[in-house]
C-alpha cells in the first residue's frame, strides 16, 4: 500500500533527518514506528501522504508517486493523518463542523457529508457531543474529534502521529482502543509513538534512530532485541523475558500487558 524506496530527507539548512529508508506497509497491517524525540518519526510519516517530498528516493501510495502533483489530493484522501496536538488540527467551531471539513473539501453534496459525519462521529463515540463547541471539549474528546475528521474522508490508511502524547491515561487507552478497533475493521494503521507499551499491540514495530531504521520486525523480536541490548522495555515485558530466560515460562509467550502475563503465570480458573 505504502512503499518508501531509498528515502532521504534534509531540511533546507542541510540537516539530514532521514537517511536511506526502505519501508513497505502492507494492506490491513498495524505498524508502529517507535523512536526518541528527534529520531525522524514525524518527518517519515509526513512523507506517507505527500506533506513532505523526499530529497532522494521515492514514496508511493497504492502505486502512485506522492511527488505527482495531479494525484496528491487522491493520496491525501487515501492516507488520513491525525496529529499530535488536538488544538492545532481543529478547523471548525463545533464537533460536527470540524468533522465535516474534509468531506466539504472533497466537494461532496450536503446529504452525503451529513451521512459521513454522522458515521465518523459514531465511530469514535462522540454522538452526544456533535453540537458541542470544540473549546469546551477535553483533550481526549478533541483528539477523538480529530480522528472522526479523518475518518469522515473514508481513508484506507490511517496515520497517527503521537496522538496520545498530550492526553491523560484514561483518554490514552480510549484512543488506543479506537485505533485497534479501526484496524480490526480493515483500516491499515501506521502508529507513531515513543511509548513502548503502545507498540505491543502492533503486527510490526519499526524503530527509528537518528533518521535510520534500527530495528524492524514483530513486537516480540524487536522488544527482545531492545532487551538484549540492555535498554529499558516495559516492566511486565522485562519480567516475562527474565522468566523466559530462567525457563519458567514458554519462550513463545509475549504478553501485551501485565494482566496477560499474570494469566500466563497463574491462569484464572
Amino acid at each position, binding site marked *: 500500500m505504502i512503499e518508501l524506496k531509498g528515502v532521504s530527507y534534509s531540511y533546507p539548512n542541510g540537516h539530514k533527518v532521514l537517511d536511506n529508508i526502505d519501508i513497505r506497509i502492507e494492506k490491513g497491517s498495524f505498524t508502529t514506528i517507535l523512536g526518541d524525540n528527534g529520531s525522524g518519526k514525524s518527518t517519515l510519516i*509526513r512523507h506517507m*501522504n505527500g*506533506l513532505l517530498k523526499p530529497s532522494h528516493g521515492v514514496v508511493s501510495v497504492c502505486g502512485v508517486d506522492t511527488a505527482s502533483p495531479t494525484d496528491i*489530493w487522491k493520496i*491525501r*484522501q487515501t492516507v*488520513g*493523518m491525525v*496529529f499530535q*496536538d488536538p*488544538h*492545532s*488540527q*481543529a*478547523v*471548525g*467551531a*463545533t464537533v*460536527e*463542523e470540524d468533522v*465535516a*471539513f*474534509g*468531506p*466539504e*473539501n*472533497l*466537494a*461532496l*453534496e*450536503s446529504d452525503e*457529508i*451529513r451521512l459521513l*459525519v454522522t458515521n465518523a462521529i459514531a465511530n469514535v463515540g462522540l454522538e452526544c457531543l456533535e*453540537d458541542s*463547541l*470544540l*473549546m*469546551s471539549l477535553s483533550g481526549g474528546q478533541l483528539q477523538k474529534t*480529530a480522528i472522526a*475528521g*479523518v475518518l469522515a*474522508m473514508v481513508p484506507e490508511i490511517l496515520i497517527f502521529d503521537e496522538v496520545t502524547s498530550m492526553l491523560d491515561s484514561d483518554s490514552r487507552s480510549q484512543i488506543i482502543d479506537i485505533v485497534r478497533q479501526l484496524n480490526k475493521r480493515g483500516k491499515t494503521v501506521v502508529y507513531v509513538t515513543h511509548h513502548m507499551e503502545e507498540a505491543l499491540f502492533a503486527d510490526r514495530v519499526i524503530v527509528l534512530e537518528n533518521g535510520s531504521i534500527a530495528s524492524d520486525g514483530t513486537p516480540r523480536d524487536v522488544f527482545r532485541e531492545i532487551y538484549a541490548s540492555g535498554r529499558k522495555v516495559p516492566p511486565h515485558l522485562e519480567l516475562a523475558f527474565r522468566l523466559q530466560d530462567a525457563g519458567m515460562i514458554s519462550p513463545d509467550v509475549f504478553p501485551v500487558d501485565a494482566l496477560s502475563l499474570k494469566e500466563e503465570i497463574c491462569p484464572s480458573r
Partner: protein
Amino acid sequence: MEGFLFSYVAGKSILHGLDPRVKIFSVMCLSILIFRSSALVDLLVFALLFVGLTILAGSGLSGIRSVRPLLPIFVFIFLIHSFFTEGAALFNSQFSPTYEGLLKGSLVTVRFILLILYGSLLTSTTRPAVITAGIERILRPLPLRRVGVTSFEMATMMSLALYFVPHLLWYAGQIKDSQLSRGSKYRRDPISGTLSLAIPVLKGSMRMADDVAMAMESRCYQGNFRTSLFELKMTARDVLVCSIVLGVTALVLYA
C-alpha cells in the same frame, strides 16, 4: 468557554432558523441605522429592539454578559470623547470633561455597544459554519479571483478566526498564568508584562498557524472550491424578514 463573546448558543428559535444571509444583511442594515442615529432616544429604540430579539432568540442575558470583557474599551471611548471634545467645561479645571463631550461620548459608546451586541446576537444564533457558508454565498458573485483570493478562502479565514480568537485568548491566559507563577510582575507593571506576554503568544500562534495549515492540507483543503454541510435555502419567511428590514432601512434613511 460557553457564553464567550461571539460564540454560538444552540437553540431552535425563529432567529436560529433564519437564513444566515438574511441575518448578516439585517445586522449590516441595523449598523447603518445605528451609525446614522444622532439622538440617545433613537439608540434607546435599537436597545429595546435588541432586548426583544434576545428574548425571541431565547438566549437570555448571556449575550449581554459576554460583552463584559470589552468594558475597558467602552470606558476608554467614553473618556476620550468626554475630555477631548470642545465645549462647556463641567468643572472649573484646566482638564475637565465637557457637557458636549459627555453627550458625544455617551452617543458613540452606546452606538459601539449596540453594534457589538447585534454582532453577538448574530453569532449566538448562527452556527459558525453556517455564517461561513452565508458569507461565502454573499461573496461568490464578486470578482475576488482578480485580486488572488476566492470566496471560499475568505469564508475559511473567517471560520478559522471564529475558532482561533477564543483559543488564542485562552492560550494567552495560560502563558500569563505560567509567567505569574514564575514571578512575573505583570500586575505591578502591566506594560512590560504585556510585552513579555506578546512575544511567546506571537511565537505560539505562528507555530499553531503552521500546524493548522498542515492539518488542513492533509484534509485536502485547496481553497478554490468547497461545499458545505449546511445547505442554504431561502424560505418565504427569510424573504419576508429581508423585505421588512430593507423597507424600514429605506424609510428611515430617505423619509
